[in-house]
């Protein structure tokens, strides 16, 4: 957003994130309500999560309160973690939703499998090639959007469709598999009952959060995302930061894709589009967690596992697929709406 200060009145516009304006003059009651709003705006989703857990624990204890259910929730969301991380990269520097992430992810997964299985390329080499490919995609996105100045959605949407086509061509429209099981260890190797890929995703997100919160790079990214022109005037190397974000998005999507392929032993390129929805849902739901109104990795991570819990529970309760769509949609709208309202209140 640009200058949110309203010249008419000279009074500051309410802050977009942490509403610290006008806190000075407030009565005790107000302060309490403010504190309440402040907390709930940040932790309501987590609260609801706990509620769900309790609910399911009561309704279907014998299936839900099992290590199996636990592992399902936390061991099955890696693809989403990588996808959302990749998406966040560009969203945080202020580029609107990168639509090519899912296809790029699919490209990597398809490439590594096709190269290894159909063309006998060494699997590690294939993995590297796959990641390089997705990185190149990121670079192209970046150049077109930042240097040439083409609309972000156009480029990424087009690129996404294009890559989907390429993926289908590579695999010739069919699911493929046959990666060596040794390779699958990079995803499935078990630590404390959870697959390695879970920890990789965790590390990725935590690292991401650290960079954003504590390092100059992170601050510059946030500033660029807040206002490009002002950042440039303030001496940030805007172009470099923006292009960098796209490149990183490519890398992350690639690594995620390779890990996903390793995990399942193959991939079905036609399916990559199916990730779009849960990916966006989690990313945006993340803006209702911890930092209301602000895209943030930890929030997204929580959102992912929150949604996973909800859907698993519903399945254990025997709901059909339309229910989970309704759940996804409903939760997304309600949660973000609430946190928006609460956050306004907490001003």
């Amino acid at each position, binding site marked *: 957003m640009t200058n949110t200060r309203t010249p008419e009145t000279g009074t500051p516009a309410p802050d977009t994130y942490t509403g610290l304006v006008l806190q000075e003059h407030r009565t005790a009651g107000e302060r309490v309500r403010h504190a309440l709003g402040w907390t709930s705006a940040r932790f309501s989703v987590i609260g609801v999560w706990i509620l769900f857990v309790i609910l399911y624990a009561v309704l279907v204890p014998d*299936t839900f309160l099992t290590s199996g259910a636990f592992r399902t929730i936390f061991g*099955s969301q890696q693809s989403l973690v990588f996808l959302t991380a990749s998406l966040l990269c560009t969203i945080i520097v202020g580029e609107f939703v990168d639509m090519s992430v899912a296809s790029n992810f699919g490209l990597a997964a398809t490439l590594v499998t096709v190269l290894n299985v159909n063309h006998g390329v060494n699997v590690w080499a294939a993995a590297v090639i796959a990641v390089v490919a997705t990185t190149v995609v990121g670079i192209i996105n970046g150049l077109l959007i930042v240097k040439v100045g083409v609309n972000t959605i156009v480029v990424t949407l087009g690129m996404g469709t294009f890559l989907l086509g390429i993926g289908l061509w590579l695999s010739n*429209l*069919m699911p493929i598999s046959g990666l060596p099981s040794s390779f699958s260890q990079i995803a499935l190797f078990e630590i404390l009952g959870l697959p390695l890929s879970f920890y990789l995703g965790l590390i990725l997100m935590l690292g991401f959060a650290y960079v954003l919160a504590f390092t100059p790079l992170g601050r510059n990214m946030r500033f660029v995302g807040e206002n490009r022109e002002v950042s440039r005037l303030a001496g940030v190397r805007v172009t470099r930061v923006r292009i960098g974000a796209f490149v990183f998005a490519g890398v992350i999507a690639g690594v995620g894709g390779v890990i996903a392929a390793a995990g*399942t032993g*193959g991939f079905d390129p*036609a*399916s990559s589009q199916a990730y779009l929805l849960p990916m966006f849902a989690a990313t945006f739901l993340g803006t209702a967690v911890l930092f209301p109104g602000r895209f943030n990795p930890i929030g997204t991570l929580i959102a992912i596992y929150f949604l996973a819990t909800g859907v698993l529970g519903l399945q*254990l309760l025997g709901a059909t697929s339309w229910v989970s769509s309704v759940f996804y949609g409903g939760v997304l709208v309600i949660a973000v709406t609430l946190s928006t309202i609460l956050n306004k209140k907490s001003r």
Partner: protein
Amino acid sequence: AVALSLAACSATDDKAASTPSTSAESPALAALADLQKPLDAYPVPTEPIEGVDADKGGTLYYIPITQQSPEFAVDQAGVEAAAAAVGMSVQVCDGKGTPTEVSACIDHATNAKAAGIILDAVPYDIAANSIAAAQKAGIPVVIGNQLADDRHPSTPTFTYTAVSGSAQQEALARWVIADSDGKANVLMNVTTDGQSQIQYAADGKKVFADECSGCTVATNEVSSANFSQVPSSTSSALLKNSDTDYLIVEFAQFLQATQSGVQNAGASGRITLAAGSASLNDIKAVASGSVGAATAQASAFVGWMYVDATLRLIAGQSVPEYTIPIRLFTKDTMGDVQLTEAAQESGEWFGPTTFTDEFKKLWGVA
């Protein structure tokens, strides 16, 4: 073996009431005629299973490739009924059409120490690792609605069950031949989503090649990945083969999209549609005459078959060659078929609904 003999004898019985539409008396046509009415008895296996009650309380995991597709709903109903009969519970997990989701479902089943895993229309490939893991954990895995994949052969804890895809395509082909008196210009909308689907269509094509010298067959590839392009690709195929008079839709899920394609090409008048793997709605379309013929498989039976296969794997017995009953519906031969969901789920379209009792007998839970 059992199933085959059954089919044969039923064939002989029904010689009298032969099909109205055709004159010639070839075995093919006789078979075609039989396909247009319910069986006298479902082809239920004969070999009983021991110690089924030991399985009481276990949980079966039913994992369809995606729940957003009607036929699986009926399969699921069958599975649930059958499981209930032996006191097992069923946990459904939606594959959502993605490898990761399917794998997640299988892993979940493995983690939860499932009594058995039933994969409906899931290609081995998209979840290879998870399936392997499940077997390593000693959990029986049954794959249905998929042709056996030679690279992953059956094992004592893993099996494929019969499919009816080829039979349906062949039936449709024969109907077209009969209906056109051997002079059909056919367009087939072939689904390229997986190896199995492609094979079914190939078998259908073969029938034309073998049994109809006067027929031409063109194909148009459609896939779920490009659902939005089914209409236009159908139109263009019709433009390329402007003399087409029969259009076979391999999977009825593409029927509507195909119909718009026909409309757009302005060919609605001259084209007779036929669809495979039809469900209630498509058969209604047949009744209303907007679709010439449709084949469907006895999905309710399929559900019981899955469970039967699973129980056999659990009991360590060999799994027999099943046959899934199919039926060819045409406007004038479907008679008083009940077009209701209840009827569809009971399986009464295909034969006496008593097959459930026969299964129960086999399992010793009657």
